[in-house]
């Protein structure tokens, strides 16, 4: 019975129409989806007025990627310290990567693996004559003994690492690969981006957009300033099409599928790799509480689109204001990523001390716990120093942080580094107690929450107590017994 009174012909027509409509909708939504996934950092067209070269893409941040690789090399080499080498070769190798500019520097990390082939083998393939020392924080770093500048601190660490077996000083509690790496990320990448490119270089008359960055360049002053800052952030150009976990796996060399955006079967370190703070952002974001990686990368892309839209003309006042607003968003979130790291490693250090205390109480070996403690403390210290290498003077926050952390970790014999002598040797004294030191770690976590609003809160020492408190609490009422 045909209740709806529809003829067979009409039904066929309607069916055909529905199929066509569905197909069209599907095709349209697929293309829109693909377009959304093309929202990467580049390529962006050349907008320089009067440009006569052959380039079609104005994006350029090879120098920054070269520095990421020099940083990776430095970290790797710091673990090769040898006190018995009379030639001091380990230190010299580090210096080549820190302040040298010579050709022939190999990429030590990441290197090709069967399931994760890397396109480049030499640092110069990304950019020539680059070093880290020329771009390192020049201000005094009060978190390290000796009243040294950022560059001097890294030189001091490199010198010590070269003469320390495996780069780990178990007497004073210094893990140099971690200290050097975490501090360098802040002193070079974060500092250069947020205290230089996204700060004074955003003024309309500095590196203006109506002129090429340098004679013959395919990019304007502002385009390149913005690109350089993005390069230091360390995100792959196609980050917006990846999940936080994908970006994390790219940095770990675990997912060629996620890394190889241009499908050439290998990973291009210039644009397809995740480095430094972008990697840490992904590590926090994959927990689901934060979205640092895409917030920062998205702001970089939006900013670059804004500059490109000026089409090689000088940026207007409103465009500069908008650009600075993107820069503010980038640096606030970047700072939060470093603060999240400080928070996390303060929690790790607390946990390590508990393990050391347990080992000491039971008379079992504390070697592994001590090794982890020194490593995590190095990360904590490095990130805390990085935090102080930004644009803002952290004032009292930095003072508290440095005092609570000390110049060195509190060792099981309760000794602690308190300074350096005129030759750069560490001076030690009796510290407080592990109880006090653990309390300091809790307070450091509190400071990170109060001053920087960290929300991922990995290794939160107080979260268990908060959860317990929540399970006991109910809406208050005035009740009698």
């Amino acid at each position: 019975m045909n209740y709806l009174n529809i003829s067979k012909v009409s039904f066929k027509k309607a069916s055909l129409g529905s199929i066509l409509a569905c197909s069209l909708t599907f095709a349209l939504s697929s293309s829109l989806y693909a377009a959304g996934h093309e929202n990467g950092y580049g390529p962006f067209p050349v907008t320089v007025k009067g440009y006569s070269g052959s380039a079609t893409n104005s994006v350029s941040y090879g120098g920054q990627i070269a520095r990421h690789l020099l940083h990776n090399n430095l970290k790797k080499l710091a673990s090769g310290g040898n006190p018995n080498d009379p030639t001091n070769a380990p230190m010299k190798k580090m210096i080549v990567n820190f302040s040298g500019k010579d050709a022939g520097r190999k990429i030590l990390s990441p290197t090709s693996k069967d399931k994760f082939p890397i396109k480049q083998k030499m640092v110069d393939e990304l950019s020539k004559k680059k070093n880290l020392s020329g771009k390192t924080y020049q201000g005094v770093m009060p978190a390290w003994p000796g009243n040294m500048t950022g560059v001097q601190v890294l030189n001091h660490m490199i010198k010590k690492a070269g003469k320390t077996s495996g780069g780990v000083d178990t007497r004073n509690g210094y893990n140099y690969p971690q200290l050097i790496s975490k501090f360098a990320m802040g002193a070079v990448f974060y500092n250069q981006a947020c205290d230089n490119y996204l700060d004074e270089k955003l003024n309309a008359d500095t590196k203006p957009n109506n002129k090429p960055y340098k004679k013959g360049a395919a990019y304007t002053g502002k385009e390149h300033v913005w690109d350089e800052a993005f390069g230091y952030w360390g995100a792959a150009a196609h980050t917006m099409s990846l999940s936080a976990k994908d970006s994390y796996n790219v940095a770990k060399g675990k997912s060629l599928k996620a890394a190889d955006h241009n499908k050439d079967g290998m990973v291009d370190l210039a644009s397809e790799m995740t480095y430094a703070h972008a990697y840490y952002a992904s590590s926090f974001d994959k927990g689901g509480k934060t979205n640092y990686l895409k917030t920062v990368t998205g702001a970089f892309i939006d900013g670059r689109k804004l500059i490109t839209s000026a089409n090689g003309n000088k940026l207007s006042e409103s465009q500069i204001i908008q650009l600075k607003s993107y820069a503010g968003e980038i640096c606030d979130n970047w700072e939060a990523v470093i603060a999240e790291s400080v928070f996390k490693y303060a929690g790790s250090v607390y946990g390590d001390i508990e393990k050391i205390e347990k080992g000491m109480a039971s008379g079992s070996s504390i070697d592994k716990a001590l090794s982890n403690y020194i490593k995590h403390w190095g990360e904590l210290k490095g990130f805390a120093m990085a935090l102080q290498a930004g644009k803002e003077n952290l004032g009292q926050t930095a003072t508290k942080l440095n005092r609570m952390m000390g110049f060195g970790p509190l060792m099981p014999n309760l000794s602690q580094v308190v300074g350096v002598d005129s030759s750069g040797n560490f001076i030690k004294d009796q510290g407080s107690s592990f109880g006090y030191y653990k309390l300091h770690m809790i307070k450091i976590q509190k400071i990170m929450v109060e001053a920087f609003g960290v929300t991922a809160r990995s290794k939160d020492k107080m979260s268990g107590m908060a959860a317990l408190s929540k399970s006991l609490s109910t809406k208050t009422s005035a009740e009698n017994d």
Partner: protein
Amino acid sequence: MDIILEFINRLYTTFADPQKRVFLGYLIAAICISFFWLMIIKNKNIYESMKIIFDKKVFFSKSSFSDYSMLVINTLLLIFLSPILISQLAIANLIYELLHLQTIINPLRMEINYMWLLPFIFTFCYFVFDDFTKFITHTIMHKIPILWAIHKTHHSARTLTPITVFRTHPLEGIIFILRSAITQGIVIALFYYVYGNNISLVTILGANVFSFWFHLAGSNLRHSHIRISYWPWLEKIIISPAQHQVHHSTKKRHFNKNFGVTFAIWDRIFGSLKVSNQHEEIKFGICEKEEIYENNIIYLYISPFIEIYKIIKNFLQQNILKLR
């Protein structure tokens, strides 16, 4: 608008949350227990039992209406007061931090094979300590004149219903909220410091498992006219409804007796225990003679302030005179 919604939510939670004493489920359980008591122990028929349990003279008395009014007014007041009161988490954080500065109590540094029992140990310890601090607080509410002036509001009830727990002056409400926060803060901090993340609260429907069973076993009958008593030996361990009714008695010999909530052991230790007597008639209130204003809602809120003022004034006058 937000305040109205919060007010409705708070009132709803009072009866819908198993963490709350007058949760509907506990009230139904109390009714069932009352039926059992009256029909099996007291040999009443179902009609008589119903008449006794739902006695109009009790639930529609002036005293009970004051209780209902205070529930509504206090709920509203606490919307504004709660946010400014210190939380148990703030206290727990403070104590937890202080624990790092001493060496007598230490975090557990060895493997133990009763780890699975820790949540039960924590839950029970919290329940016992909470009961103890309730006993202490209740005792001082009776012993210190200024606090008695506040607590009198509760004792002025002439009829007892489960809602009489809300016949509480807001000042006393604040004291009890702080007591609860301090108790929870201490227990949480101590256990967390020693056992870390190995502890949790064992719950049924979100309520502490021991509180749940205590309330399900008829805790609401302590504020009722159903005089359920236990065997004397049990009344020396656990406070029966009849024992708490003795606490509300106007008879002088019952004054300052049975301060406990769950356990009678505190009263035994401090010499304030009184087992119940089914043959003894009890009238509820502060004194035998009923005052005209004792159920006037304004009087209930204002009189403690007036009394406190008088106590302080007397105290100052006496001390100034002494000094002169």
